[in-house]
């Protein structure tokens, strides 16, 4: 058990290795060199590193600003400790793992094109299946060519049913079928795929609202989770995405994908700071096990 946890942390650490280097690399080398850089220069270096990791200008300035007032004099250990705390305080607030506390539990998966919605669904299905739950997938992306087949591929791999209609069909109708099927089959978890859409497209956001209405009508209280999938390589636009999807259907959780070893992912801090939406999952690699519950403590440990 412990070994497994440890392995989990290692893959997280590997996933964040470059982000860690990007943030801490230049700061640490300055510590070690001890080349007489002033305190102020070090703060500037840190601010630069944070911006380079997509934390955003505003959030980076705030974090460094607080550090500047808190740190009296100069002490490398204190500096690291306070820095770690300041990031942890921001992330702690959004650390709320998804609890499957209803039966059936309906998860609607949302996001812009190409962030990894279908893959995330596949991984989620595998996880719940492994926990002994019966999982039903709904192929609600009727727009993109072969999106349905992609989800069916995951269904086969994981071993769960996929409710589908033809491409170009009405997503509302697919979802309707899926809810009915789940009720008669007594599925524990229903995961609804939706077509990728840019958050600025009014018509497509209206369509999403409609899908949500169909779900709530057929099963009061559902969807229990509107999971927004964000790509970790996205820049400041991720905040706009979160805002507009939240305005349209209410986002209850975020999955951050593709935290896979490149220098990125700082956007998670910006979003946590600005939006306060729970971060449920982070994807740190390509395999099924690489979708993990977000843990603020581990995340900060791996990062700093």
């Amino acid at each position, binding site marked *: 058990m412990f070994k497994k946890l440890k392995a989990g942390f290692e893959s997280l650490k590997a996933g964040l290795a*470059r982000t860690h280097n990007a943030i801490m690399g230049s700061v640490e080398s300055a510590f070690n060199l001890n080349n007489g850089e002033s305190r102020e220069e070090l703060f500037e270096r840190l601010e*630069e590193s944070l*911006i*380079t*990791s*997509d934390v*955003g*200008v505003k959030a980076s300035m705030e974090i460094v600003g607080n550090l500047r007032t808190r740190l009296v004099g100069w002490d490398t250990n204190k500096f690291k400790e306070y820095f770690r705390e300041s990031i942890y305080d921001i992330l702690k607030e959004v650390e709320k793992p998804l609890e499957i506390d209803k039966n059936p539990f309906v998860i609607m998966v949302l996001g*812009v*094109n*190409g*962030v*990894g919605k*279908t893959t995330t669904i596949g991984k989620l299905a595998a996880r719940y299946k492994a926990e002994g739950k019966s999982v039903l997938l709904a192929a609600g992306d009727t*727009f*993109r*060519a*072969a*999106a349905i*087949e*992609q989800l*069916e*591929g*995951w269904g086969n791999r994981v071993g769960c049913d996929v409710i589908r209609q033809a*491409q170009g069909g009405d997503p509302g109708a697919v979802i309707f079928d899926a809810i009915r099927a789940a009720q008669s089959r007594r599925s524990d978890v229903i995961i609804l795929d939706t077509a990728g859409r*840019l*958050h*600025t*497209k*009014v*018509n497509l956001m209206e369509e999403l609202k409609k899908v949500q209405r169909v779900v709530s009508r057929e099963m009061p209280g559902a969807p229990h989770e509107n999971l927004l999938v964000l*790509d970790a*390589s*996205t*820049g*400041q*636009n*991720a905040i*706009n995405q979160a805002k507009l999807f939240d305005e349209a259907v209410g986002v209850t959780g975020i999955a951050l994908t*593709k935290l*896979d*070893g*490149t*220098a*990125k992912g*700082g*956007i998670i801090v910006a979003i946590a700071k600005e939006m306060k939406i729970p971060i449920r999952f982070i994807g740190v690699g390509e395999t099924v096990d690489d979708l993990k519950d977000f843990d603020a403590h581990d995340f900060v440990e791996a990062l700093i």
Partner: protein
Amino acid sequence: MFESLSDKFRKILKDVRGQGSLSESNIQEALKEVRLALLEADVSFTVVKDFVNTVKEKAMGKEVLESLSPGQQFTKVVHDELTALLGGEDASLELKGKPAVIMMVGLQGSGKTTTTAKLALHLRSKGRRPYIVPADLFRLAAVLQLKKLASEVKVECFDSTNYKKPSDICREALREASLKGHDIVLVDTAGRLHIDNTLMDELKDLKEILNPSEILFVADSMTGQDAVNTAKGFNESIGITGVVLTKFDGDARGGAALSMRMTTGQPIKFIGTGEKVDCLEVFHPARLAGRILDMGDVLTLIEKAQTAFDEKQSKELQKKLKKDQFTLDDFKDQLQQIKKLGSLESILSMVPGFDALKQAKDIKIDEKEIARVEAIINSMTKAERAETSILNASRRQRIARGSGTKVQDVNKLIKQYEDMRKMMKKLKGAGPRGIKGLFQKWM
């Protein structure tokens, strides 16, 4: 909510007038704003540093021209410099070899498969005979996706279904392409990370087999600071020849493009502007420069307006206007002309300050509005279109039913039309440019 950058420049530099020229001390503040704007637009930190220094050099010592305010002068320097960095050289496709091969590469989810189909359509419409080759065997159903898209754009597609290795696909597809007389081969590859050595080596092998004349790096316009490393990684391992910027129809400022351009030295060749297969445009540096700086791009807009407005139609319209015969049919024609300009959102986003306005006032663009108006007009009889005064309540109800709208929508449209007609009456003597000029003034 946000002040546009050019407004900020204007305020910061308003006192410079009379000092004769821009100097290091008086542009310091403005340079800081440039830096912030670029960082917020996701331009990479190092690129921003270089850029700010260049702007400083270019701007310093510049005499403030009589005709421009110092703010305008500075804006021009920044905009010109950014445009120059983003473009400059000829960015058309280089198609050498028989057949010429184009390889599509990039990260997962950047839009390679969709872009492959879009590009095939673009080339087909230019009279070429492209051949689509799906070589992404990793992502589930990627081959099927491209096959479906290929049939949608009516371009022949290699059948990759029974292959296990992308290299075998490429070899066989090249042979097929020559046999079938295709002059361009488009190869879609699996998404991969630039730090994944195994997969990058696979890409090198494919390059060896294909000997492509173009290797296009497909990148998401929403990419953050890492764009620099990704583009650099791909460029260093396989050497890219250009960038395609996707999902440009969202609200990302697209600063990553500048980073990619600066680190690879390769031009941005196309932008993807929508989900449909015909949404691919040739890249315009000035347009992106304006967007990164949130200054809009009036120039592109005017160009677009000029090509879309049919000269002949607009002359006929002028005649009608003079005789006060502007009917609802003409109104519909006008709407169709506007539609030719692109989506409403894309037109409006080129207007300076529109993005800020949209955020401040929560303006929603409904692309279906034009379609609705057309449906309403189509549901009218000829007589009704010619003379709206005969539209009584029961006629209006019938039209609403026929067009699937509400009576209020019909009323609103008729009111708009009548207002427009009134206004046009006033503008009868609008000069030789007539209606065309009028529309330009509006936008």
